[in-house]
């Protein structure tokens, strides 16, 4: 099962390596990990996407909670949640036909073209991981120059929140 674990972590050097080190040392899967500070500069918010049996997920949350730098943690897949990922794609865009095709496709996916040259487009797209996958699939593979994905972020719906 795929789980999204949200963490509030002390914004200190080494916190990230403690967390990533835990995953590698104990052999847990890690699909993606995103991290940045919150409105409180002393705290970082992290989203980890991981997979495993219920038993493994229970161990992951317990082991993460045990880390001294982890202030609070929640497996948001246990509730109603929103998940988004951001992607930049740089594609070849040469000649009117190709440029038009990429533009149309981007409109369909509600992607935005954020940089343009004579021969390339840079496109920004936000959505679920599967939407991002679908967009990549829809582009011709040999047109893709570069893909940058942020990894997923998650947040609980409604009034529930992961705060101090």
């Amino acid at each position, binding site marked *: 099962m795929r789980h999204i674990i949200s963490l509030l972590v*002390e914004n200190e050097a*080494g916190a990230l390596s403690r967390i990533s080190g835990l995953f590698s040392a104990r052999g847990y899967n890690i699909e993606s990990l995103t991290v940045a500070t919150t409105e409180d500069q002393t705290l970082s918010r992290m989203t980890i996407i991981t997979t495993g049996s219920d038993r493994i997920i229970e*161990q992951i949350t317990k082991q993460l909670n045990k880390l001294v730098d982890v202030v609070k943690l929640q497996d948001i897949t246990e509730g109603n949640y929103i998940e988004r990922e951001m992607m930049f794609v740089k594609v070849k865009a040469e000649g009117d036909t190709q440029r038009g095709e990429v533009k149309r496709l981007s409109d369909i996916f509600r992607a935005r073209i954020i940089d343009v040259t004579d021969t390339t487009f840079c496109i920004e797209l936000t959505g679920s991981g599967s939407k991002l996958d679908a967009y990549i699939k829809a582009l011709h593979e040999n047109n893709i120059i570069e893909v940058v994905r942020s990894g997923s972020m998650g947040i609980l719906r409604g009034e529930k929140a992961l705060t101090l």
Partner: protein
Amino acid sequence: MELSGSEIIIQFLKDEGVKHIFGYPGGAVLHIYDALQKQTDVEHILVRHEQGASHAADGYARATGKPGVCLVTSGPGATNAITGIATAYMDSIPMVVLTGQVPSHVIGQDAFQEVDAVGVSRPCVKHNFLVKDLSKLAETLKKAFYVATTGRPGPVVVDIPKDITAPHIKIPYEYPKQIEMRSYNPNFKGHPRQIKRAVELMLAAKRPMIYTGGGIIMADASQELREFVHKLGFPITQTLMGLGAFPGTDPQFIGMLGMHGTYEANMAMHECDVLIAIGARFDDRITGVTSKFAPYAQIIHVDIDPASISKTINADIPIVGGAKQVLTEMLKQLENTDLEIDQSALDGWWKRIKSWQAQESFAYEKKEGLIQPQEAVEELYKVTKGDAYITSDVGQHQMYAAQFYHFDEPRRWINSGGLGTMGFGLPAAMGVKLAFPDKDVACITGEGSIQMCIQELSTCLQYDLHVKVINLNNRYLGMVRQWQEFFYEKRYSHVYMDSLPDFVKLAEAYGHVGIRVDDPKDLHDAMVEAFKLKDRTVFLDIITDQEANVYPMISAGKAHNEMDISPLQQARQAALKEKGELV
């Protein structure tokens, strides 16, 4: 009071009540050593290798319950200490390790004796810190001691760059009496309703079993455990780490369990219907193959570390809490309950256990002119009247020590259970002897293990640490040899120690007394002599049977009821079977 970083460290240690530290100087800690030299409150023990420092601090902590402290330099100083840090981590021992670091402005430049000590130690510490700001030094040290000693204890590393300790930069210092950490709040109490459910379940048991580990000792909960076990009348087994928490000579104690536990303890684990686990972590040397572990049991698991619960074995009633607090609450509830123990079922259960005990799974054959390792430990037990502090290294001798020295008190048995670190015994014994100079301290070791930290014999002389080294010398790496005998058709690959040193002469070269014994009839007198020499370190080189094996043994993939038993026990079983008395 205005102090430099170095002075803050020393003053803080005094304020924290630290009397002894183990260490080794070097470039990055020179300022600290200079401050150390100017006072007498904190005594420093100069070891001969940083591994010895971390093991000695560890032994000190295990024996006293206070955090062990060591001080080492950057780079190789820090990496040499790692084995001892990992050893303490695996056994949840409170320890604070101060490592020097190169000056802040050259960190990351591959400076001389630079290593990322925080990175290197990260997987084997409870937590670690790099001090980046002198104004945070005292607070960080306080945090280190707080984290190391509370909750599930463990080692904490504090990495201190040299510029932080510079003598000319002084700042106001005040001892931080208390510290708050929003991200660290260990829970000691245990959920009352879970405890109630646990008490109901244990009272309904027909074949109950109590299984406890090092957590009891860490929590100083031996008294509560004794009351609890005596009140219930249930059988109890203890892990290698838990020995002594409950008296080894009490009739309710049915021996250590696990890979080399007693037949009766392992059989009872297999057959029990309610298993009460307290401060033990269902480690693989305890459970055997997990799929066949305690197949009939409902499991109550009390542990201060939530991550230890249902990690390898699923707990039916998990209780997160300190052993002392939870046992106290259980005792209170047992006092006030109307429920009663099924005494006739319990009597029947004890009868079965006694029949397993009758097979004498530890029995071994004595041979004329050839010392059995077991009899050496038995003799040590007799001569020290069971009252010594015993440290050990790792291997067969460690198992014999656990099997034949019956610890009646906690903190007397000091060994590396989790990491299994050869070389632990001698430095750990130094730590114990330093804490308890008037007590007998013996290190049971083998000729393999002792050579891994033998340099510490020199430290023993310098600081009058008069430990007794009981070297069970079989010229083999005995436990590895045993596995090669059992599982590799006796292909003894690189386990024979050719060209051993003359340990008697070696001991003498270090300024100690060396005694060699190779005949069982001289064993007693040699032991007596060794312990009579109160003010000498004695190295007892005991030449033992080369092919002795540790029994019983649960091999890989086997369950508790599938032990390999000794030839003697096999014969006894056959005889009982013939009489129709085998249960």
